[in-house]
């Protein structure tokens, strides 16, 4: 402890004064010193929803008229044919309402409903052939859950329809390379 309390108080006051002056000068001069550029790696800009991108469109005229998010998209081999497997989660409504909405959307897009196998809805149109939609409610969710279940769509494969660079981003298209692993 300093022996002379008065001297200590003076030193403290002078130090506080100098620091305050420097701080004011720094703040006043800061606009002249340029602008900082944050990198933004901790809050990436969210890509638009996958089905609103021009990359891999749904069959012409088809829209999904319920709240949803695409989880995965991609081509799989079924009996030697390439088929598009699109997994979508639906939100805020239950499975029956989603089935009704899907049926209305397919009919509006010119598809004809066919007798399904099991729970799957089947629709057909001359240019696409038969397509199916399997609606599954999640188990163990509360009645007011936001996310309620999944729709697995089996569609004809489509080629990449745009050269927009965003189509190369798997997080946007939800077409993930096989080499990408789930985090642990």
């Amino acid at each position: 402890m300093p022996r002379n309390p008065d001297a200590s108080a003076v030193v403290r006051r002078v130090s506080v004064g100098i620091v305050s002056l420097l701080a004011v000068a720094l703040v006043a001069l800061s606009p002249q010193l340029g602008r900082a550029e944050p990198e933004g790696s901790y809050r990436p800009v969210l890509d638009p929803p996958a089905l609103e991108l021009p990359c891999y469109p749904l069959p012409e005229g088809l829209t999904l008229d319920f709240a949803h998010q695409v989880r995965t998209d991609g081509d799989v081999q079924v009996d030697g044919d390439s088929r598009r497997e699109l997994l979508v989660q639906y939100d805020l409504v239950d499975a029956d309402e989603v089935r009704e909405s899907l049926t209305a959307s397919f009919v509006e897009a010119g598809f004809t409903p066919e007798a399904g196998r099991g729970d799957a809805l089947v629709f057909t149109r001359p240019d696409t052939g038969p397509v199916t939609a399997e609606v599954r409610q999640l188990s163990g969710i509360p009645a007011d859950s936001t996310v309620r279940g999944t729709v697995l769509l089996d569609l004809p494969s489509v080629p990449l329809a745009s050269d927009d660079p965003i189509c190369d981003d798997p997080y946007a298209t939800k077409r993930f390379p096989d080499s990408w692993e789930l985090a642990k």
Partner: protein
Amino acid sequence: MIEELERAYRRLPRGGTLLAVLVAAHVLLKLALLPKVGHTPFVGDEAYYVDGGKALSNLVRDLVGLGPLDSSELERHVVGSGWFMPGMSALLTPLFLLDPDASTFVIRCYLGVVSTVVLLLTVRTVRRTFGDRYAALLLVFPGLVPMYLLFMYGAWGDLNAGLLVVMLICHLVSIFRQVRKGVGFSLREGAWLGLVGIVIVYLRSSTALLVGGLFLVLFVALVVLLRRRERLRGVGAMALAGVVFIGLLLPWSVAASHTLGGRVVTTTSVPTVLANTFGEYDRICFGPCDPGSTIWFSPLRYAREVARATDGDQVGIQSEMSAYARQDVTPHSYSRDVLGNFYAYALEPAGYNDQLMDPDTDGDTFTYWFVTLLTTLMWYLSLVVLVWVLLLATRRSFESQILSIVLKLGLGALLTQPFIHLASARYWPTAAPLLALALGLWLQVRAERRVAVGVAHDLPAVPQAVGAPTPAAVHRGLYWVQLGLAVASVAVALGILVLAI
């Protein structure tokens, strides 16, 4: 007793000299480690704090220039995902005001200087409250722990928060000394208490439990131990502490809630943290999350996508995701995860040297092993003191009793982290400076045992204390409080072990 203590002290160098030597040793060792960490790219969350500092410096520029505020920049880089509070960003702001394009090296040097200033301010407060010995211990542990010195160049808030927790403890002990005499504390002291508390929470939001808990304990002590006017005075000062705390928390809570569209008090990370720590990762996104990213960013992107699709709030959706992922948590799985967290929290103190030093160039050097081995040795010894202080129930002196209780509460609150959060070798710097006080207490209790059977507790009563509990009653009460806390610690430890088997 006094003579013996004086003899013991005469054998030591004068306090001031010893402290000056230790400060010099701290600075030299820290400078020696700078080349190893100075150019290390920012690790994980450090990137957020640096970006936040840049955005806040732009806010100051806009305010000074009377220009329009770039609110989208603030929302994206300061509020971000609401995972962290911007205390460290605010600490970095002056640097970015002066040098908006500061290099990694300059930023790390600045952080190194700031953390040493905070350490020295803490040492000064500890010296005034507890004396030279405690201050010297703080300069040795953690002031000379190599890994701690590396962390001092980091942008995480854990370390500075820990030092400020020690300042808060000093302040609380000073207040308790007054309260014990039957005297309340002033509004000014109350405002300072609230200010230190909220700064700690801004630096590291997980300390909210510690700060809130200690405030609550102080409030109860005021009501129990003070009478009439002094009680009113104390409660008034405590209320002011609360007003300052909440008043300074509100701007953040309002901004974060407004930006993220849900109710945010401190941070939004708890639901995702609980899900990642105890739940099943392949259920967090109501199924597997997107591959190729981390357990933090993939669920976040998903929550933002669902919020956009449903016009909902991402904070609420993260809670739903967390609940779904944790449906199958059992007491057994939970306690095993807690034990795993304790291992990561406490048993690999040098675990971050691969991140802060370059393993390719520094992986097998003398410095690397010096940092690893000395840190491990010093930290493991401190763990012995941690266990001791958690179990301590002393009757010797009021000073020992009150520090014992505050340290038990403080360390207990910090050690809740492994019960909630995936732990890592990055979190112990918050608790480390408290262990310096624990070590000081160990020496103090030892000295008290050696020189006297019991220390007098019959302070002369001041007029304000009429009707307050007698010193002997307070003394007994504090003993039972310690015993209760020690039993609680043992019960929790045994409970977790038994459930995990």
